[in-house]
């Protein structure tokens, strides 16, 4: 009997024959916040996208278990129904599809799949108005096409807005902090903190330690060249901030690239 909430076992993934994830192992208990840090190109976004079900990456080995179920068999939408949410590093612009319609459809699809009643347009509007304020965006955003013409910062806030609406069990934030000024960062962090609960886990992918001052992680993992090369407490984030990633890469080389 496996009572872990979210667990990745020996995950290997590649794209067009290029190996990117080379045996990722991770345990994320319910209610905890874990950070994944690591240099550019180490495979953090690939990991996030594979968890969410992006089909362009081929998983060649391993499993991803959410509440004991291997979600690799599931479509991206089915994973969303199970309570998974990925805030994209580069949120996609969708011309012509209004944010309001899209998000209401998303919410109701998830509710329906979980045997809950759909919310009507008025209930949804009330919810959306409340949440859009929390991330400091204007109500006008709801009418605009999804991410269409948004600035980088607006896109990141809009991702958090969607997160607040959809209330997932497991939220993965892929560099949501990158490119945000300190005010926007505080807003984002506050919204995430407000959602922190015993029932919800977060995987915060970041390149910088900065955001972790606001969203204090229970554990920090370092990804290097497609594997989790080191794990530790919050102190590890501070150490990385000070020393950079080079020393871990070296340790990894000394250890033959595995099993530190």
């Amino acid at each position: 009997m496996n009572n872990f909430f979210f667990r990745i076992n020996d995950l290997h993934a590649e794209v067009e024959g290029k190996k990117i994830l080379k045996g990722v192992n991770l345990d994320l208990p319910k209610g905890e916040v874990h950070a994944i840090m690591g240099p550019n190109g180490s495979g953090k976004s690939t990991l996030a996208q594979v968890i969410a079900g992006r089909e362009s990456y081929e998983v060649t080995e391993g499993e991803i278990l959410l509440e004991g179920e291997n979600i690799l068999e599931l479509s991206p939408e089915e994973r969303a129904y199970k309570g998974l949410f990925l805030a994209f590093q580069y949120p996609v612009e969708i011309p012509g599809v209004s944010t309001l319609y899209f998000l209401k459809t998303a919410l109701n699809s998830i509710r329906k799949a979980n045997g809950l009643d759909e919310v009507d347009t008025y209930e949804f509007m009330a919810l959306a108005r409340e949440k859009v304020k929390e991330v400091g965006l204007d109500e006008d955003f709801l009418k605009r096409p999804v991410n269409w013409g948004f600035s980088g910062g607006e896109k990141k806030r809009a991702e958090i807005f969607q997160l607040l609406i959809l209330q997932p069990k497991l939220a993965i934030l892929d560099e949501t902090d990158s490119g945000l000024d300190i005010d926007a960062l505080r807003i984002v962090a506050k919204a995430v903190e407000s959602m922190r609960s015993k029932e919800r886990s977060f995987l915060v992918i970041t390149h910088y330690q900065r955001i972790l001052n606001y969203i204090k992680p229970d554990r920090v993992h370092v990804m290097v060249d497609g594997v989790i090369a080191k794990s530790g407490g919050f102190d590890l984030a501070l150490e990385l901030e000070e020393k950079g990633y080079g020393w871990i890469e070296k340790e990894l080389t000394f250890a033959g690239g595995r099993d530190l």
Partner: protein
Amino acid sequence: MSETVRSVDLVIDSYKKEQLCAINDKEKLLQSVAAEKFCDVGFPTQKHEEWRFFPLGEVSKVVFKRADKLKIDCSSYREEKFGVVFVNGHLLEEAVLLPEGVEIFDTSNLDFTPLIEENRFAQNPMLAFSYSLFEKSYLLRVDSKAVLDSPIEMVFVTHADKYNFVVPKVFVEVGDVAEVTFVEKHVGGGISTLSLPIVEVSVGKAANVTYVRVCDEERKSYHFSYSIFSVDRDANLSAVSLDLGSIKTRHDLVVMLVGEGASASVDGVYLPRKNDLVGNYLLVEHRMPHTTSHELYKGVLQDSARSVFKGLIHVFKEAQKTDAIQENRNILLSNEALAHSLPQLLIFADDVKCTHASTIGRLDEEAIFYMRSRGVKDSLARSLMVHAFCLEVIERVSNSTLRNRLDKKILSVIPNSELIGNYLSSEVDV
């Protein structure tokens, strides 16, 4: 070849018959030129640049017969309050309902100047064919300064047997400073019927015209429309065309900007599927200075559908300060679909701003994944994107009732669109 000869005979016979008395002298004269031209050159073949991707197939191999004049009940085709109905090219008198300031006549005793001139027959042999065959011609007139809130609908019904042809012909004259919306709708048809409508629209000075054209004939029918617009000084034309596809649907559209400050937006959506072939051939002529044209044609192709977009912006030497944009965007939903996109510029003035762009691509898989990762089903995500792609054009129609009608027609051919629900009406003011 011998069939072309027989079609030539048809043209000559038809022309000789004195049954053509219902049309006006100027048109009669033009008709003789058209008949001569067609007898001279015959049907266009794929050797013609304009017909390279548009083979005529049996249209040029079978001798079609003129469809009969009929009286039928067309009420089911009517959607707007005001309008007229033509059945096989004949006005259905009892179905005429027009507001004050709008009238319809047959052209026999009228003095007016046709927009189609002789040189158009050499440009387009198919027009020479259709022009030599019409036997009724109408003029729909909107008074100067008339401001009409309700659209005027012109329904063209083809009610005919296999290998029958119809040639409806209308001249629409919009007086100076008038404001009006037209809906030109082509419906009916059947297996291998051939519709050859000819429409001329003259937009008076400072008038404001929205002109919506919907081609929604039976799927096995042949449809070759020729439309020509002239837009006078400071007038504005907004033309929106919707082709729902048939075995062969072709629209040749000429827009002449003939007065300073005239502007036109010329937009369209085509949605061919199965074995459809849809062609849109546009010619925008900037004849005077300070004229503006924006063209946006968008196509969504399913199954083994094919499409051709050919757009030519022709800037005359006099037309300094022309501002012209032409855009053609295509989405292929299947590996078998094939879109041709041929934007062209022909510029004789030196101080102009002209651009064109064309794309043929697929749905953005990253956007699909993004939506799916938030719980939106794959099939819905796809139809949402296709629908949004088409909406950009439809949104240019400001009358909301009409816009919703066009939207419904588009939804009726988008795969899985029933999942979308009532998209436009789900928009709530925030």
